[in-house]
């Protein structure tokens, strides 16, 4: 599994270079390459991931990277939001690199873990997909705020030239949120189900903080869908909720380190 991951790492790094090139004053790379190179990485990476048991942190990080790049390609193809790669490219490259360091290759340790159940695999996959979608919503919101500032301050620099229009970023944020929230919800429910079926007790801190975070995410989606929040307010809400997810994860991870949870 090491070689496919190294190939994916190289392709993601190349795609990141393509995304950064225009900001470094180079001519934009043809769209075929900005779509094709990360997509090739996704294919190699995806094929490798089907043979990795989803146990431990390294495969989870690797899968998160896979979904991030997949969403990057989707954003570029459907929204012409190539600037998303400015965030997803380095992040995914770093995550695959980290997974290789921890692994040393995902799923290739001396003590190879037993394969998880199908339900557990589904729980992990859906949860990570939800997390990747929320990360995309965060990225779209951040790009929105940067472009908003560029337009308001009339700088007309690289952000103005290379970032997508405000409305498109707002639409991308909306879509990522309304898809990400149900995915995270389903992932959490599946997680409870898997633990309950396995007779494993759930950490109360995880329940309390997880529920609070879920409520915050739900509120963010609610104000967008029901109260039609858009623009800067929606961007700030999206950034706040994703930041809360990250902080809660870090707090729980630091307070109870271990590999029994995939994250």
């Amino acid at each position, binding site marked *: 599994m090491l070689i496919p991951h190294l190939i994916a790492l190289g392709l993601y790094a190349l795609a990141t270079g393509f995304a950064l090139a225009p900001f470094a004053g180079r001519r934009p790379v043809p769209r075929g390459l900005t779509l094709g190179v990360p997509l090739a990485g996704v294919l190699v990476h995806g094929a490798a991931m089907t043979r990795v048991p989803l146990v431990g942190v390294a495969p989870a990080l690797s899968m998160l990277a896979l979904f991030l790049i997949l969403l990057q390609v989707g954003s570029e193809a459907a929204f012409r939001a190539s600037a998303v790669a400015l965030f997803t490219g380095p992040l995914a490259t770093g995550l695959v690199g980290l997974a290789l360091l921890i692994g040393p290759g995902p799923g290739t340790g001396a003590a190879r873990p037993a394969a998880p159940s199908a339900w557990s695999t589904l729980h992990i996959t859906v949860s990570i997909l939800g997390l990747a979608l929320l990360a995309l919503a965060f990225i779209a919101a951040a790009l929105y705020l940067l472009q908003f500032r560029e*337009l308001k301050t009339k700088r007309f620099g690289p952000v103005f030239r290379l970032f997508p229009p405000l*409305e498109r970023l707002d639409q991308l944020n909306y879509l990522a949120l309304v898809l990400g929230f149900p995915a995270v919800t389903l992932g959490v429910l599946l997680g409870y189900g898997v633990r309950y079926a396995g007779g494993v007790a759930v950490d109360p801190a995880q329940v309390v903080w997880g529920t609070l975070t879920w409520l915050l995410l739900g509120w963010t989606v609610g104000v967008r869908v029901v109260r039609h929040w858009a*623009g800067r307010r929606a961007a700030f809400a999206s950034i706040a909720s994703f930041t809360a997810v990250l902080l809660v994860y870090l707090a729980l991870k630091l307070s109870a380190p271990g590999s029994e949870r995939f994250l």
Partner: protein
Amino acid sequence: MSAAGIAVVGVNHRTAPLDVRERFAHAAREVPAALERVLAAGAGGGVLLSTCNRTEFYLADPEAAVPEAVWATLSDRLGDGRSASAYGYVQRDRDAVRHLYRVSAGLDSMILGESQIQGQVREAWEIAKPQAGPVLHRLFQSALLVGARVRSETGLALGAASAPSAAVRVAGKIFTKLTGRSALILGAGDVAELAASCLGAEGVRVTLVANRTYERATAIAEALGARALPLDEAWDHFAEADIVLCSTAAPHAVVTWQRVAPAIARRGGRPLCILDLAVPRDVEPAVGQLENVFLYDIDDLQAVAAQAAAERRHEIPAAERIVSEEVERFWVWYGGRGIVPVLTEFRDRLEAVRQAELERALRRLGHLAPDDRNQIEQFSHALLNKFLHHPTLALKQAAAAGRSYGLLDALRQLFGLERPHDS
């Protein structure tokens, strides 16, 4: 000028002022007659490219009198005794081809790299198709390809290099699509009308035109398919419009925070793009501080345009390289297109001479045995082939290098050959 080659005779924005160019501009319906008049002076084909920035006659195989015919045609349009030649230029052969390629690529445009000229070149060619002739057909076809190649392989067409196109660019960074957006025009200035037409080309609908003089607003509104209203009734419409174009002649700001803030508050967070093209400015800067209001004045738009123009200038060497490559490619075709028929005729002519002289010689040498007669015939063949070998080779090499045109012309004149039919 000899009756061979390609020439361009005309004027452009560098050589003639606007009032002169306006007089020289030909509507599509006037083109056939103008070309007919010029071609009557002796040319194998012609295309007239007439835009607001240039009027150029492209001519194939023009006789010496043709440029004068062009100047006479244009001078008549001045109508005041001035000669059009004082404003114009004549370029020939490779330079003429290069000129058209540069025009098509946007390298010769007032706004460097603008793409509208590509459509105008195509239109000129379409209109003149019956009068263009095969050489100009090929030239204009290749010019369109050169324009497309320059735009796809260089950054010459990137960005918005004029204030109205910068307005479109700025609006395009706020809205996902401009198609179907509604625009409100305040004032009836020419700049706003121009910007409105630029936005209209992107699918923006001008729904309202407001002006202090209602009659003027009505005139513009009718032209744009919009509704006219007095200026004082415009403020409430800031709640619905996506784009507001301002170009009143007011000496002070007419769009004030107090007038438009209540309407903007009703927009529910939808962005509003205000393009203030007036000097002095029409919009109070405080309006731009409102949430989701994006206000740009003429200086801002010119800054966007200047930035794009500066970026485009970096692309000139790459674009010129493509033009040079394509000029050479065309010239190879042009030089080589007549080589086969001329060589065939040249060979036939000498073969006829050989046969005539051989027959005459053999009549005098009737006592020779058949083998000897064959020897003499073979000798004549070999001699002719030796004579033809070097000129044929030289012509083929010159054609491959794109330099056969002069040699072919010399061959035709020296041996009295017919001009070949263009293929």
